[in-house]
């Protein structure tokens, strides 16, 4: 489901720091779907998500010198992206109302693939809706954990939160989802 973490992250860093022109392009190609995915799940709007994802890569490009390398490159990118999303959601800068049917439909149509579009089921729509309706602090944890597959430790690192907070927020969000998706549970 998810692209495997690029095993050659250190090499990425070396190439980037050596000023290799193609290195940044490779980095964007490798991580574009994950960064864009987090932005889209959080913002519910493809245009905004693209804007934020692009900004995340540009900030990463500028801050490569500050990246210490003690975390995974992907974790660092998730951290930049998550911060940008949460800041945007918190600032009243948002141009579109995130909640409601419109935002969900935009989310559902964000990146339709022909094979997926036809199979998009009621369950899929309900899942999208349920995630979109989660409070922001719980939604980011669910997105990072259940959709992006990060570990609790990585999520704590990305969001700069204590491990216990990550755990409790995730549990609260999952319980919320369970209640909303009850009719789909056996």
């Amino acid at each position, binding site marked *: 489901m998810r692209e495997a973490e690029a095993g050659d992250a250190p090499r990425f860093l070396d190439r980037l720091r050596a000023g290799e022109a193609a290195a940044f392009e490779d980095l964007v190609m490798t991580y574009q779907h994950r960064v864009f995915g987090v932005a889209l799940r959080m913002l519910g709007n493809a245009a905004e998500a693209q804007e934020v994802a692009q900004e995340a890569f540009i900030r990463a490009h500028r801050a490569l010198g500050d990246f210490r390398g003690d975390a995974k490159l992907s974790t660092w990118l998730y951290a930049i992206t998550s911060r940008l999303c949460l800041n945007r959601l918190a600032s009243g800068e948002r141009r579109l109302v995130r909640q409601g049917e419109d935002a969900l439909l935009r989310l559902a149509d964000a990146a339709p693939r022909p094979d997926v579009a036809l199979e998009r089921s009621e369950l899929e729509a309900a899942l999208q809706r349920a995630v979109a309706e989660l409070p922001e602090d719980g939604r980011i944890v669910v997105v990072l954990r259940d959709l992006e597959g990060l570990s609790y430790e990585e999520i704590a690192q990305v969001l700069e939160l204590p491990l216990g907070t990550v755990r409790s927020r995730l549990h609260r969000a999952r319980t919320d989802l369970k209640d909303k998706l009850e009719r789909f*549970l056996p």
Partner: protein
Amino acid sequence: MTCHEAREWLSAYIDEALAPEERGRVDAHLASCAACRRELASLRQTVALLQRVQPVRAPVGFVDRVIAAARPRPWYRRAADVVLFPLTVKLPLQVTAAVMVGLLAVYLFERSPELQQAARPETPRSEAPAPSRERPAATRPAPAVQAPPEVSSPARGVTGERDRRDAARSQDTAPPAPPPSAAAPTPAPPAAAPAPIVAPREVGPAPEAKTEAPSGNVGAAARQEAESRPRAFDRSGETARPAPAAPRLAAKRARPLADVVTSVAVKDRDGAERELAALIARVGGSVAERRSEEDATVVEALIPHPRYPEFSEGLTRIGSWQVEAGRPALPAQIRVILRLQ
């Protein structure tokens, strides 16, 4: 461990994110609590559902856009962004500027006699053909230079309204208008350059009389046409008026000029005017215009040529008069300016 405590850890339990000791406590609780087992099962299924959410893919071209945006712009492009407005702002500004420059140019031209003077030299050339066109119809040997009064008569229909306005303005804007008698011998051209050409022809009938003498019938026709409308009695103001195309207008305007300019010395101006009116009526003439000045009453009359001797005789009874200017050959309808003073 209570159900509440156990359920708080169930998510981490599913993810195997609990410490062994914590996991053991949850296991113990689940073994004895069916409700919490059902809760655990529901949570597992929920997490399994979430795994089915389709992954999102970035739009096509995203990488190119990011690369383009990340590439530092050359210094000159950044400088251009700062210095130059975007096109949506720049275009309206440029259009506005062009319009304002145009308006300013027109305004300056209309307000500056020097500019109009500079534009003059081409006007005589453009009008040169006009007299030659008119000459055959005029059937007179008068030089083309003297043509303006006749030339203008066909064009009067077009310029008539403007002429009336000009006439009214010249009377309004030149309060101490010199008397025609004084204007005739000494045209007193104003400082404006067009004066030397226009003033003598328009203001002073005397100089014209020499050259227009043989053109009696044409002049009369022009005069008859002009009788139906008011005209400036004293047009000295016109020569000073800095119209952009003063020579052109002068050529077109061609008002009927007085055939005789007379000053009449009277004791009682009002009484003399009444007598004059009676005399004019007696000889079958008419008063074309009347105007009071500070020191004189000016009457412009039209007298039939055959009755002109009778009119002259009657005028002698009104006061001591003398002709200040006059044509050698008088037309059928003589336009007389009488200055009672």
